[in-house]
């Protein structure tokens, strides 16, 4: 099969690899129909995620059709159309039993590595370093799904791939980020980052009853999307964000703040340069400008929810704000399995159309180009969906206005 393989910092290649096969009774194999590039994949692309090995197949947002099931999988059958959550969870352990699926104790075969790094090991993830299991990812034509009786959710044929694909990660991630804010009706929620995670957090905050959502980014097209989902927007290149937020909330600060930026935060000025130098000297593993701002402006007793991924050690984080102003910090890799059914229902009811965020469809062959484009936010790129079975020449010529693939549901959006 074809797969997108990581070979080093900013070095990925789509190449022929062996097909996956069933390794355990609770495995299933799916033929992937759509797969996306995530902001988290950019951290791998940039070489910021430890524990990657040359030859790793990446990708964790994917869906497709079941083509084989192990004898321990009763709830799925060949032919089912499913979306797959990015954390791998057994459903039996202490954490799974409390629906904390991304903390599953039984899915990381390299748990000892994660223990060395973080003290304890979370769940294994698809295509996300050997620290988190070394599982082959889903930017490929097929994928092996461990604990397939727990993870994948069946989706109705009436919904297109792009409407349900993001159940695999970014929609539940934005939703959990908002849910963790314990939003009271009328609350003001500020969201740093208007990438896919930020956009879904914005929409979810509204669904959960926020009175006001303020979105922060610097790319006009992303801010525009946020605006279309009725957020007020701040371009941090034009205004001083903490000052503006103080102003907008009468000096009290937002009731909740969401950092949907993560470890590769961008900033100008002294702190920006400081973080870049320290990160490149490996004195600091993450660049947290958004987190610093969020901790500073969040109202007393408010909640700072952090879906943005941080990997290691952060510098100049105002911990004093947390203690002295009684802030609540919430974070975590998303417990995706917990949200599949309720969020699928929201999609079916038409409360949200996740395909809203898609800007680019590319054949899998062009994954490396997709990464670069998404990293540089070039061509107004917000979300890239890869088609593993698309005919490369058709899509390669970006003039074509034809269908991505015969049974494809959405017209390719070409610029």
């Amino acid at each position, binding site marked *: *099969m074809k*797969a997108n*393989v*990581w*070979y080093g910092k900013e070095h990925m*290649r789509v*190449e022929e*690899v*062996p*097909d*996956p*096969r069933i*390794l*355990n*009774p*609770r495995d299933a194999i799916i033929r992937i129909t759509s797969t996306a590039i995530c902001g988290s994949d950019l951290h791998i692309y940039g070489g910021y995620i430890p524990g990657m*090995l*040359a*030859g*790793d*197949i990446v990708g964790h947002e994917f869906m497709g059709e079941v083509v084989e099931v192990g004898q*321990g999988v009763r709830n799925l059958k060949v032919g089912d159309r499913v979306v797959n959550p990015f954390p*791998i969870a*057994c*459903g*039996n*352990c*202490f954490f799974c*039993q409390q629906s904390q699926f991304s903390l599953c*104790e*039984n*899915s*990381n*075969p*390299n*748990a*000892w*590595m994660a223990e060395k790094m973080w003290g304890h090991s979370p769940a*294994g993830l698809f295509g996300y370093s*050997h620290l988190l*299991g*070394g*599982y*082959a990812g889903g930017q*490929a034509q097929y994928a*092996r799904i*461990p*604990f397939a009786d727990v993870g994948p959710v069946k989706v109705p044929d009436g919904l297109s791939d792009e409407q349900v694909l993001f159940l695999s990660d970014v929609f539940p991630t934005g939703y959990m980020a908002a849910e963790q804010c314990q939003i009271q009706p009328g609350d003001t929620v500020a969201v740093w980052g208007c990438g896919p995670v930020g956009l879904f957090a914005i929409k979810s905050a509204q669904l959960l009853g926020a009175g006001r959502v303020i979105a922060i980014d610097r790319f006009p097209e992303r801010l525009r999307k946020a605006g279309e989902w009725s957020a007020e927007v701040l371009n941090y290149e034009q205004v001083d964000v903490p000052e503006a937020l103080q102003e907008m909330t009468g000096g009290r600060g937002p009731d909740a703040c969401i950092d949907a930026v993560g470890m590769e935060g961008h900033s100008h000025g002294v702190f920006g340069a400081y973080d870049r130098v320290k990160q490149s000297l490996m004195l600091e593993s993450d660049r947290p400008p958004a987190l610093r701002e969020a901790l500073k402006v969040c109202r007393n007793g408010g909640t700072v929810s952090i879906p943005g991924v941080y990997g290691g050690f952060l510098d100049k984080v105002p911990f004093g704000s947390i203690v002295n102003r009684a802030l609540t910090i919430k974070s975590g890799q998303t417990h995706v399995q917990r949200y599949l059914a309720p969020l699928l229902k929201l999609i079916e009811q038409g409360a949200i159309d996740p395909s809203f965020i898609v800007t680019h469809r590319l054949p899998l062959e062009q994954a490396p180009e997709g990464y670069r484009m998404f990293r540089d936010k070039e061509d107004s790129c917000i979300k890239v969906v890869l088609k593993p079975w698309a005919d490369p020449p058709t899509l390669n010529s970006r003039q074509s206005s034809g269908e991505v693939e015969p049974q494809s549901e959405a017209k390719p959006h070409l610029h």
Partner: protein
Amino acid sequence: MATDFTQQGFSRSPQQRATVTSAIPSQIPSRRSYPRRQRLPSLNGVALAQGLGWFSIALGAAALIAPGGVSQLTGIGGDRRSVVRGVGIRELASGVGILTQRNPAPWLWSRAAGDVLDLALLTSGLRPGNPGRGRAAAAVAAVAGVLAVDALAAAHLTKHAGHPLVSGVAAPTDLYFETSIATAKSPEECYRFWRNIENLPRFMESLESVRALDERRFHWVAKGPAAAVREWDCEITEDRPGAALAWRTLNGAQVPNAGSVIFEPVGPGRGTIVRLSIHYSPVGGRLTAALAKLLRQDPQSQVREDLRRFKQLLETGEIATTRGQPTGRRSLIGRAARRWRLTSSN
């Protein structure tokens, strides 16, 4: 005084859990937390024997290399070189015996007998008119002291010869560690799964097979990284259904070890903490053990992973793996990582 570790584990009732260190022989300073890797504290006899072994070797070497000097020093006169050489050979033999044999007691007795012969030889130097008489007297006193130490160590080790810590298990290089894991299953389920001996090779990675010889004794076959297949017999020394198990290898095992596993209830509906304690003699001594640890091939790392697999099997019915999944081309580093099982994936 050797401690019976098979009892130790069990002396720990749930009420004593908070003071878990009390179950470890009191000599261990509790400055380190779990998992603990300590030289067995109660083996003074063994440590002493090791010291005496090296003393023998030094003495023997000196007697062989410089017999003249030795007879001068001990005041027995310069014409006894061949006798001194003989003493040297005997000392070397006992030294090697003490250091290499699992049960050093007989070799310590041979040292003590040698001391008696030496005393006889030295007293000849006490004869009036011998110019080295003063030195001979000092040598007699020294050897008498050494004889006392030899006899003490030999008697101690003889007394405990039947004990696993001394015969078979407690070489001076013995190591001890504890490791534990929390599971969602009840102590009964954990016990039943473990007690069903056929299950062991499913989660103990270095184990090829286990076969029952009778109710309490089992024959183990290890895979072993050194290609050489190792086999040994093992007996259950204590069996408390639903609560604990203890075992030790029988004499003749190449890697003598003894251990216990306790299934400790955490609280109603809260599952079980499975606690494993192991005593073992590392093959190839401490240096090899340190190297093995670096490569995570040491028993403690391996047993920890075994426990993880035990939990996975029990809770999920399978062991999480990536072996056999597709990958791109691996670099040398990637292949080495796989070879040494630093990562589980291929």
